[in-house]
């Protein structure tokens, strides 16, 4: 009787100590795993934009010299930005389109600032695969809708820089900007 009890106690103890041992091994290995993940973070994060790149996040543009019908190309975060002074006819053309027939329905008012409807400011990056559309320089092809035309794969944008024809899925992106004064725009 006593012998049996002793054996049982020994078994229970062996079982117990085995589990405790497993626990500490699992804890040690998990800790090492957590450490490995923690080490991976800076290794991944180092590829994000560095402080000097982030610091270039805003650009000031002087728009006083852009006549109606003209556009300039400037750069913001190393990407081209188109600033266009629309003519009254271009504004009318843009307003005449019914939103229903657009691939990415947006009105001209959605894409400009109130009271500054003639200033169309967009990124010069085609939403298809990132080429720079034509239409800023004098005499460049402005596409079938009189806005911008991307020569890479033939996307046509209208006078409000909305996609009308071709493979691009969405309108040219309007960046965040505001008018610091009547003649200066801060982008970003």
């Amino acid at each position, binding site marked *: 009787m006593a012998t049996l009890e002793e054996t049982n106690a020994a078994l229970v103890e062996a079982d117990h100590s085995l589990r405790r041992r497993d626990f500490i*091994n699992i804890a*040690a290995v998990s800790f*090492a795993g957590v450490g490995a993940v923690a080490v991976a973070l*800076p*290794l991944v994060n*180092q*590829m994000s934009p*560095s*402080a*000097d790149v982030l610091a270039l996040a805003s650009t000031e543009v002087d728009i006083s010299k852009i006549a109606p019908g003209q556009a300039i190309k400037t750069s913001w975060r190393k990407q081209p930005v188109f600033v266009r002074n629309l003519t009254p006819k271009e504004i009318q053309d843009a307003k005449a389109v019914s939103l229903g027939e657009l691939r990415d329905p947006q009105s001209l008012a959605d894409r400009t600032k109130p009271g500054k409807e003639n200033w169309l400011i967009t990124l010069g990056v085609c939403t298809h695969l990132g080429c720079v559309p034509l239409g800023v320089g004098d005499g460049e092809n402005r596409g079938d809708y009189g806005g911008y035309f991307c020569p890479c794969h033939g996307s046509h944008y209208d006078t409000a820089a909305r996609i009308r024809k071709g493979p691009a899925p969405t309108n040219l992106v309007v960046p965040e900007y505001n008018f610091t004064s009547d003649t200066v725009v801060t982008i970003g």
Partner: protein
Amino acid sequence: MSFAWAKPYQPKTELGRWVDDRMPLPRLVYNAVGGGYPVPRNLNYGWNFGVLSGIFLTIQIVTGIVLAMHYYASADGAFNSIEHIMRDVNAGWMLRYAHANGASFFFIVVYIHIFRGLYYGSYKAPRELVWMLGLVIYLLMMATAFMGYVLPWGQMSYWGAQVITGFFSAFPVVGEPIRVWLLGGYAPDQAALTRFFSLHYLLPFVIAGVVILHIWSLHIPGSNNPTGVDVKTEKDTLPFHPFYTAKDGWFAGAFLTLYAAVLFFAPNALGHPDNYIPANPLATPAHIVPEWYFWPFYAILRAFTVDFILPAKLWGVVAMFASILLLFFLPWLDRSPVRSGAYRPVFKRFFWLLMVDIAILGFCGVMPAEQPYVAISQIAAAYYFAHFLIILPLVSKFERPLPLPNSISESVLHGEKEESAPYGLDKSAPAAAQ
């Protein structure tokens, strides 16, 4: 691998079997660092530094790859790109300090690894190739470390490149053309910087390749052990996993703690302030010193001051190269059949003398080239050569080693703490009387 009782790899899953039939990579790993590699059961902590070297090689390669994403090897921009990493890149300061101090710690663990091999006779038959491949790794490390130190293009970088390529000009006739060829110019400049960067990126992968050969050749005879006695039965060994993975694991944690302490709280302690001054080809720093891991060799280089038959400069350069190359002949210079220094009373004393000697050489290497340091370095350098080329062959011939244990497991039974003490002292009385 070479032991009959090594457990063969048995895939646990159907997928494992499928892969193993087609490409036995899991089997290779299992036999190299898993349950299939039997290791002497009595290894002390000196044996942890091999795995640690591998860890630091990995740290260097990983941090190096990400640093190369931000560094540009341009004589005008290299210094500023390093400062860009330190100031603007996310966690850049940590990566750069990890890499710079990682190099120092890589050398620390490799030096301990080498000295362990020296003490326990790990270079002796049948492990000569393991030793020689290790020396190849060491030489590659030195080249990589030197070229890496040039990359920040600070004052020490620049003048280090100047001085080290200057070694070659010591050789008559061919020396100067070789130096100009190495630099791609008459002084270190853009051409030298770009090629050093290219090679600094390449060599670590060559090192990794030689490491594989080093481990392969080790796995044929298996690891040496503190008694130096060959493994005889299964009782003498333990499978690498889980026993040595656990031991290496916790010790790596302890060593990495030390590394982190330096990295985060004294990151420039092992560097030189002059390397925070941009390279200036028109002004040499008052006192050029290499990184600490080269100090003993620098002392040997400068110890030759007299033109005796050959110019002093050539003597210095030849001796410096010889001080490493002679280690390739060590397996044949030391002929004692007993491996472990623990059983070689005379060898043991000379070994510790050598350690002191190398420390003195290192100290002289960092001090300015004036008396009394020059005189001390000359005595120490003379001892260095005498130790390997004269004393070791003589000691191995005349020394009377202590009696060896019959087997590893007997020495273990004798007590964990005394595993390196001669076992069988109780039987040694009759042995000594013989």
